[in-house]
């Protein structure tokens, strides 16, 4: 990503657009899934993903280092999702919502059922956690970020983040074991 101010010439603008498109393409699925795990429904995840990318790309000077940019984008995405959950909680709305997307016709029915069951298990299990426990679990165990980076993203200390991760794993395991036949 270029590190100067807003581009002046048409060529600079085209180059910036191409870099922005490549950045979005490279990270879109990861960020959508991260946000979806936190908010639990596709429509909100779509809106929040777009919002997170727009916030990040409006400050493109922050995106020079690819690895730092990926973490920075995850941080914006996590905070955007947590803000959304806080607002939803203030309005008294429910936690994670069910998946309302239609099932695709072309998928094998057995595979579709198994995948839907696993996805439901995951989302219901995540729904038992507080937003910060959920974020810690998703970032550590699904995004595979080190605990130090999870602490940075959640703006808290390492001991606090370990506590969130431990609580989240204990609660998720209890939920998962109750669901076993």
């Amino acid at each position, binding site marked *: 990503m270029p590190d100067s101010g*807003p581009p002046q010439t048409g060529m600079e603008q085209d180059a910036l*657009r191409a870099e*922005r*498109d490549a950045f*979005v*393409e490279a990270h*879109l*699925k990861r960020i*959508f*899934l991260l946000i*979806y*795990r936190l908010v639990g429904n*596709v*429509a909100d995840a*779509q809106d929040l*993903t*777009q*919002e997170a*990318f*727009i916030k990040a*790309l*409006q400050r493109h000077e922050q995106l020079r280092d690819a690895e730092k940019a990926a973490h920075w984008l995850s941080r914006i995405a996590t905070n955007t999702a947590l803000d959304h959950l806080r607002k939803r909680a203030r309005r008294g709305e429910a936690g994670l919502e069910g*998946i*309302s*997307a*239609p*099932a*695709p016709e072309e*998928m094998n029915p057995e595979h*579709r059922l198994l*995948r*839907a069951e*696993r*996805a*439901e*298990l*995951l*989302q219901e*299990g995540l729904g038992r956690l507080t937003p910060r426990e959920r974020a810690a*679990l998703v970032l*550590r*165990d*699904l995004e595979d970020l080190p*605990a130090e980076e999870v602490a940075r993203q959640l703006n808290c200390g390492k001991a606090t983040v*370990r*506590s969130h*991760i*431990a*609580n989240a*794993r*204990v609660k*998720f*395991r209890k939920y*998962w*074991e109750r669901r076993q036949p």
Partner: protein
Amino acid sequence: MRNHPDARDLALHAGGDLPWARRLAVAWHLRRCGACQRELQGFRDALAALRSGAGLPPGVDWESLAAEMQANIRLGLAAGEAIRRRGQKEGFRAADWRAAAVVTAALAIVAVAGWTLQRRPAPAPSPSSAEVVLRPTEEGLSVKWGGTEAAVFGPGRAPAAAAVSWDGGVRAPFLDEETGQVTIYDVAAQ
């Protein structure tokens, strides 16, 4: 066997997240304690189950969802750029009263629309979704049912992006390049 590690320690150990001194103590205990080994395996199995459900939500057509999000992100950036340019041109004071005028006008439109909708008679029965075809066009969106096709939105310019969304609806955002105002027409098939 005494001094078993608690469940939280085992949960952290399952993911390699204990500080090194505690990790050594727990690992030493686990070598001699079958009950704690089974507890640890329980956490590992739960983690594996968590990861196995972590793909895309079932039923989501990723290609069309991604295309829609990419188009909306481009649009949002273009709108932000238009607002920034406008702010630079006119200065903040002019922008302030114009923004206030836009907000007032928008509130008035919402109030009138709400009043009109409340007074509107019940709509005629709509055709079933199997008969309705929604599609983006260069002028906006069109709805086709039976032998009739109507351009439902035609604001006089092509949409910045138009896409069939993942849930079967059609969405077309329009960007006013002077003000940065974005109007999104979103029609859902029911």
